[in-house]
C-alpha cells in the first residue's frame, strides 16, 4: 500500500479531545501537510495528560512540555550540528516577561507577558500561576517531591500581587529554587477552566488527567492511551517562536526491532528509545542522524549494601571496585554509548557530577584488598530491573564473572519493574545494578538523593555516614562559591574512598531521526520538544 500523500483532516471522533478550542486560524491555512506533520515512534506513551498528577509516566513530561508553559525556561546551548542542550544556570522567560530579585534576596517578582493567552482565549493571570504552584506543592507524589527539591514547599510562598504580577517568597536560600521553576512540573493551568470542570475536586485531578487546560504551543488533538497521541499546533501561541510543525503523531510501538525498522525504512521521522546496540549500528551506518547527549547528572552504577555484612567492609567494597571489568561492560553492554566513569585521578578532576572514579580493572589489586578485608570467599546476589535488562543483564553477567576471580560467587536476581522499586525500598539487597540521574544537574543534588543519611529510595546502598551528610548539607546551602567548592570536593572524595556506589558510565540519551529533521532539543526531562523541531 502506498502511503497517502495528502493528509486528511481528522474527522473521526477521537477517544479524548481537548475541549474549549480557541477559534484557530488552522482552518484557513488548510490541513497540515505531510511535511508539517512529524511521526514519532516511542516504546510507550503517556498514561495521563497531567504531569503533576500522581503516577504519571515518563512520557507525560512531553505533554507538559509541549501543551503547557512555565514562567521560565533554560537557555539553549548548541552542542553539535544535530543537538541543542541547555544551560541550567541561565534562565529565559517563557510566560514571564521579566523578573526581579528582592534586594534582600527573600523573594522574586515576575511580570507575566501581556499577550499570553490560554487555549480558551483567556489571558494568563498571576492567579493562574498561583493556583498551579499551589497545586504542585499540595497534590503529593512526584510533583510535590520535585517542588520540595528546590525549597518550594508551601502555598504561602506563592503570591498573586495583581493580574500580571506574581511573587515567589523563599523559605531559605536555595540555588535550586529558580532552576526548579523551569523543569516540567511547575507549569501553568487555566485555573478557571480547571475549577469549572473539577466536579468538586479541589485540584481537578480527573479532569486534568484527561484534558489539557493550558496555553502551550500545542493542544492534544487525540489521545488513545497505549496507541497514539496526536498533537496539533496552537496557532495563537505567543510565548515563543511559533513552531514549524503543525501536527505531531506520537505512536506507541513496543517492539524495539519494529521501531528500528521504521526509522531505517524512513517511515518514522524520529525514534525514541532504542537499545544501545541498535543506536550504535544506526550511528555507524550513517543513514539517519543520531543525537547523543550524555544524560546530565546520570550514571549506571553497581551499589553495594554498606549497612549490612559483608559489604559494610570498606576494603571489600574497594576490592569489588577494582575487580569490575569496566571496558568490557562499555563494549558488550553499552556498545560504547556512554562516557567512562573509571580510571580517573584519586582526587576529582573537576567538581562536577558525574566524575570518573579512581578505580579501573586490576584483579591483582582487587585480590590484595580482598585479603586485607579479612572476608572469606562468600556467595551473594545481584539485583537488576527486568525493565532495563537489555543493558543491565550483560553488565551483571560480566560483574559476576569478574567477581568469581576474587572469590565472590554472585547469583543474578532479575526483578520485574513493579517489584524492583519495592526491592530498593527494602534496602536489603547486597548488590544492585541501576541507573540514576537528577533533573537538576548539581553534584550535591545527586549526592543528596543517593548518599544522604535521610535514606531516600535512591540510597540503594543504604549508605549512612554523618560526615557525608554534613558535607552534602554544607554544599546545598553554601553561602559562597569557595565554601561550595570545598564541600563538593569533600563529598566527591569521600564517595570515591567509601565506594558504596561504583560508577560504571554516564549513559548517552540517544535519539535517531531522519536527515531532514532539525532543531532537536534536549531538556532535563528528556522528552522531545515539538516546538523547536523542524522538518524538511
Amino acid at each position, binding site marked *: 500500500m502506498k502511503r497517502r500523500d495528502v493528509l*486528511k483532516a481528522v*474527522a473521526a471522533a477521537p477517544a479524548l479531545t481537548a475541549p474549549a478550542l480557541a477559534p484557530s486560524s488552522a482552518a484557513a491555512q488548510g490541513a497540515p501537510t*505531510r511535511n508539517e506533520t512529524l511521526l514519532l515512534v516511542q516504546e510507550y506513551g503517556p498514561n495521563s495528560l497531567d504531569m503533576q498528577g*500522581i*503516577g504519571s509516566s515518563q512520557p507525560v513530561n512531553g505533554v507538559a512540555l509541549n501543551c503547557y508553559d512555565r514562567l521560565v525556561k533554560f537557555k539553549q546551548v548548541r552542542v553539535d550540528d544535530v543537538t541543542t542542550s541547555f544551560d541550567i544556570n541561565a534562565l529565559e522567560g517563557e510566560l514571564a516577561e521579566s523578573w526581579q530579585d528582592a534586594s534582600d534576596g527573600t523573594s522574586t517578582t515576575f511580570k507575566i507577558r501581556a499577550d499570553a493567552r490560554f487555549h480558551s482565549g483567556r489571558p494568563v493571570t498571576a492567579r493562574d500561576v498561583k493556583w498551579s504552584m499551589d497545586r504542585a506543592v499540595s497534590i503529593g507524589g512526584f510533583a510535590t517531591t520535585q517542588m520540595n*527539591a528546590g525549597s518550594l514547599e508551601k502555598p504561602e510562598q506563592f503570591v498573586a500581587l495583581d493580574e500580571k504580577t506574581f511573587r515567589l517568597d523563599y523559605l531559605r536560600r536555595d540555588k535550586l529554587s529558580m532552576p526548579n521553576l523551569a523543569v516540567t512540573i511547575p507549569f501553568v493551568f487555566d485555573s478557571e477552566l480547571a475549577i469549572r470542570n473539577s466536579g468538586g475536586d479541589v485540584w481537578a485531578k480527573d479532569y486534568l488527567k484527561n484534558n489539557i487546560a493550558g496555553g502551550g504551543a500545542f493542544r492534544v488533538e487525540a489521545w488513545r*492511551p497505549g496507541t497514539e497521541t496526536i498533537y496539533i499546533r496552537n496557532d495563537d501561541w505567543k510565548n515563543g517562536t511559533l513552531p514549524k510543525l503543525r501536527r505531531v503523531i506520537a505512536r506507541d510501538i513496543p*517492539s524495539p526491532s519494529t521501531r528500528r525498522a521504521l526509522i531505517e525504512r524512513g517511515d518514522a521521522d524520529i525514534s525514541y528509545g532504542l537499545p544501545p546496540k541498535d543506536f550504535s549500528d544506526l550511528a555507524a551506518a550513517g543513514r539517519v542522524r543520531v543525537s547523543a547527549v550524555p544524560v546530565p547528572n546520570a550514571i549506571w552504577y553497581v551499589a553495594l549494601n554498606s549497612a549490612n555484612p559483608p559489604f559494610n567492609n570498606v576494603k571489600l567494597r574497594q576490592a569489588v571496585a577494582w575487580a569490575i571489568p569496566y571496558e568490557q561492560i562499555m563494549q558488550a553492554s553499552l556498545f560504547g554509548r556512554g562516557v567512562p566513569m573509571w580510571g580517573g585521578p584519586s582526587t576529582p578532576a573537576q567538581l562536577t557530577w558525574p566524575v570518573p572514579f579512581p578505580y579501573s580493572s586490576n584483579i591483582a589489586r582487587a585480590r590484595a584488598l580482598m585479603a586485607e578485608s579479612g572476608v572469606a570467599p562468600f556467595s551473594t546476589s545481584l539485583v537488576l530491573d527486568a525493565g532495563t535488562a537489555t543493558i543491565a543483564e550483560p553488565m551483571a553477567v560480566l560483574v559476576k564473572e569478574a567477581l568469581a576471580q576474587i572469590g565472590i560467587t554472585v547469583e543474578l536476581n532479575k526483578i520485574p519493574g513493579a517489584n524492583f522499586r*519495592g526491592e530498593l525500598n527494602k534496602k536489603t539487597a547486597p548488590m544492585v545494578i541501576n541507573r540514576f540521574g537528577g533533573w537538576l544537574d548539581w553534584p550535591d543534588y545527586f549526592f543528596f538523593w543517593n548518599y544522604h543519611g535521610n535514606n531516600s529510595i535512591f540510597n540503594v546502598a543504604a549508605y549512612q555516614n554523618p560526615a557525608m551528610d554534613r558535607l552534602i548539607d554544607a554544599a546545598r546551602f553554601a553561602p559562597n562559591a569557595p565554601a561550595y567548592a570545598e564541600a563538593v570536593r569533600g563529598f566527591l572524595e569521600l564517595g570515591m574512598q567509601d565506594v558504596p556506589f561504583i560508577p560504571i558510565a554516564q549513559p548517552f540519551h540517544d535519539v535517531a531521526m531522519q536527515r531532514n529533521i532539525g532543531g532537536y532539543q534536549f531538556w532535563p526531562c528528556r522528552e522531545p520538544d515539538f516546538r523547536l523541531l523542524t522538518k524538511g
Partner: protein
Amino acid sequence: MRGLALRLLGSLPALVAVVIVTFILTRVLPGDTATYFAGPTASAESIAQIKAALGLDRPLPEQFWNYTKALVRGDLGMSLTTGQPVLKDLLARLPASAELTLAGLLIAMGIAIPLGILAAVKQGSLWDHACRIIVTAGVSLPVFFTGLLLVYVFYFLLGWSPAPVGRLDAFATAPPTWTGFYLIDAAIAGDWETWRGAFAQLILPAVTLGLFALAPIARITRASMLAVLGAEFIRTARASGLSSRTVILTYALRNALLPVVTTLGMVFSFLLGANVLVEKVFAWPGIGSYAVEALIASDGAPVQGFVLTMAILYVLLNLTIDLVNRALDPRARQA
C-alpha cells in the same frame, strides 16, 4: 432453549470462581502497585497516599466487597498504566484482538483443513510428509520470530507490506465505530481506502498467527479423518460405488468435523489472549499486550478485567461450539 438457559446458568459458578481467584491472585502476587506508580522520587508518604487512593490500605475482605459491588455496576476499576477505566480499554481493544485472531484463524483453517484431509486421504504420500513438516515448523517457530521475520522480509527488504505501526497507517483515520472491526466499519462507511489500509495492516500479523494455529487444526483434521475413513460406513459407501469425492467430502468430512470444530473453538480462545507477542511486534492495540503490560506494572484492575472477559468469552464460545456441533451431529441434538 431450556437446555441453553441451563447451560448458561451452569457456567455462573465458574465465573464466580474466576472473580474470586483473580482477586486473590492479584493481591497475593509479589509487586507493589503503589510503589511502582509513586514514581522515581517517591517518599513513604506519597506511597501511602497512593495506597489510600487505591483503597489498598483496607483489609482484604473489605477490598473484595468493594470490588464486587463495583463489578455488579459494570465498573471494572481504573487502569493505572493507561489512566482510563478498564471497561473502556477492554471494549476498545477487544475488537482489535478479535479481528486479528479471526483473520489468523481463517487463514489457518484455509490451509490446515485441506492439508489435513489430503494428508489423511493420501496417507504416507508426499502430501502427508508436507503436512507434517509444515505443522512442525508452525509450532516450533516462536510467533515473535515468525513475526519479525515476516516484517524483515516483506516490509524492510521488499517494501510490499505497509509499516507495522498497528491497525492503520499513522496518517490514516479510523472509520466511525460500529463493531470495532475496522474491515467491517470501513465497509459500512463505504470508505474503501481505509478498508484497503486496514486490510494491508492485517495481513502480516494474521499470517503470523495463522502459521502458529495451523498445527493443532491440521493434526486434528488428519487424525479425525483417518479414524472416519477407516469406519465401516465409509467402506460401505465405497463398496456402493460412490465417487471418491462424495465419500470424502460428504460422508467422511462431515463426520470428521466434530472434533475439528471443538479444536477451532479452543484455538480461537487461546489465540485471543495468547497473541501478546504478535501484538507487540506489530504494535497491535489488543487485549493480550494490555494485560501483560498491566501485569508487569502490578496493575491489578486490568488483569482482573482481562481474566473475567476471557472467562465470559470462553463460556460463550463453548456454547457456540455446542450449538454448531448440534447442527452437525444429530446425535448431539438428542442428548
